[in-house]
């Protein structure tokens, strides 16, 4: 190794897979260059990333500057510029720009595609990748400025691949694999993700907002892409009608003929399946009953939490009248605390060309662009101005499903147009009943 890294070496002794070991392996492979790669950035980039990180631990201060380049020509996103402030000591990482690559829907790859991406990144970048970070994108970590346009050209021309979003752009929309594999999918997540990605190309590639904006698409409330926790707009599959029950299959679960949870969690002996304890007793709304022969569900009380379906997938199925719930305002804790999404649309159908959904998106953007402060996420704006202001901006009537908890503020503020006759009263009429 080029640099001694005792502090980093210590990290490798833990029980988990270590990024230090990974980067060392790539550093060795670059030095050897068994495949004869024509490296376009310094061969010791991986050595130097370890070197600068070690120095950071020694100095207890960062040796990175923050910010700069944001894209290739025509794009205002997809590249996150980073520079090292010790370029003489670590020339390999004098520049260490990150590139965001728009991951394919459902994250399906062919090995041929992965090989091409990795070959490109070994040749023109550090070789280090981070698959599907918090954004969902393929993250290519570390290259030098003169490589950016070259990489973009090869990505778009040879691999048929676009960059993703960064900065104050729409971020790369991200979805679960949905109907392509999963029987729980209540709508075609990949179709909607693909449609909106194309519709809002301009917003994805150029900044438009006070801060980042994320769409994420989950086919059902299991929320495999965690849209409810991290998307400014979460599209979560749901159904309106009743959970479909196959009573024979329920009996087979109870009788031990079918393994609960599709055989998951079977590493220990938990004893015989107990439907009362493991399903009925865990239903969050207490809307299920089992009389020893028949399972019943009081469907209007069901919150579509998915628990019972996950435990007994062969007995219970999502309803047939399916669509989407839309939640808004989730975010990680940068400025204000972390927030989960709030329900805005209890149910909307998810049929192309998704006109109603797009109208809603654009109303929300108009409101946020107008009222949002610099670096204020949608969730923070909603908190600052109140949910009611968002309802006005989106022209939605409040409904019971939007209510999270009973009100704590006893005041009701009416607007003049909400009051019959307005705010000026007829004093003659009033005096008929009330003396001076």
């Amino acid at each position, binding site marked *: 190794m080029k640099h001694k890294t005792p502090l980093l070496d210590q990290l490798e002794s833990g029980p988990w897979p270590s990024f230090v070991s990974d980067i060392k392996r790539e550093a060795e492979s670059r030095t050897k260059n068994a495949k004869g790669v024509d490296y376009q950035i310094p061969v010791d980039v991986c050595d130097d990333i370890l070197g600068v990180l070690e120095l950071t631990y020694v100095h207890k201060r960062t040796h990175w*500057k*923050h*910010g*700069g*380049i*944001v*894209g290739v020509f*025509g794009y*205002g*996103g997809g590249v*996150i*510029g*980073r*520079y090292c402030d010790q370029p003489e000591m670590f020339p390999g990482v004098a*520049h260490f720009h*990150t590139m965001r690559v728009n991951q394919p829907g459902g994250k399906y790859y062919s090995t041929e595609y992965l090989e091409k991406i990795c070959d490109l990144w070994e040749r023109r970048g550090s070789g280090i990748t981070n698959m599907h970070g918090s954004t969902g994108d393929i993250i290519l970590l570390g290259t030098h*400025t003169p490589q950016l346009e070259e990489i973009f050209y090869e990505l778009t021309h040879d691999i048929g691949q676009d960059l993703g979003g*960064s*900065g*104050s*752009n729409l971020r790369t929309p991200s979805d679960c694999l949905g109907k392509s594999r999963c029987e729980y999918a209540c709508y075609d997540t990949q179709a909607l993700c693909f449609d909106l990605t194309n519709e809002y190309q301009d917003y994805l590639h*150029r*900044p*438009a*907002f*006070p*801060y*980042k904006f994320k769409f994420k698409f989950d086919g059902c409330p299991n929320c495999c892409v965690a849209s409810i926790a991290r998307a400014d707009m979460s599209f979560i599959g749901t159904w309106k009608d009743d959970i479909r029950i196959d009573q024979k299959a329920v009996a087979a679960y109870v009788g031990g003929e079918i393994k609960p949870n599709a055989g998951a969690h079977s590493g220990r002996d938990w004893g015989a399946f107990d439907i009362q304890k493991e399903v009925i007793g865990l239903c969050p709304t207490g809307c299920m009953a089992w009389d020893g022969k028949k399972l019943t569900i009081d469907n209007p009380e069901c919150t579509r939490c998915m628990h019972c379906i996950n435990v007994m997938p062969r007995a219970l199925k999502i309803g047939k009248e399916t669509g989407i719930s839309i939640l808004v305002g989730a975010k990680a804790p*940068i400025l204000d605390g972390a927030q989960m999404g709030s329900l805005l649309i209890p149910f909307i159908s998810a049929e192309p060309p998704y006109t109603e959904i797009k109208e809603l998106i654009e109303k929300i*953007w*108009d409101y946020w*662009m*107008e009222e949002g*402060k*610099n*670096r204020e996420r949608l969730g923070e704006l909603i908190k600052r101005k109140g949910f009611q202001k968002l309802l006005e901006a989106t022209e939605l009537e409040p409904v019971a499903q939007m209510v999270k908890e009973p009100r704590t503020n006893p005041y009701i503020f009416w607007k003049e147009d909400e009051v019959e006759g307005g705010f000026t009263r007829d004093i003659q009429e009033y005096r008929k009943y009330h003396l001076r």
Partner: protein
Amino acid sequence: METAEAQKVIIEGLEKKKGKSKFYLKDFYAMLPDWKPREVNKLVNNMVQQEMLEYWSSGSTTLYGIKGAGKQGAAEEGEE
């Protein structure tokens, strides 16, 4: 207001601001009070395409500045 005129307002507005070289999108709304946010956004993004302005980003937020002015590539604010 015509596009060319609006572009002039923006460039002059930016040149007037001393000691700062990178600006939020919202700063431009104030320079063109009669324009809708989305129109201002289109205008300034277009000025970047025409190389009158340039983007600068922390990674999570994007700012705009006059092309070539103020903090560049690897410099810190205040350095040439």
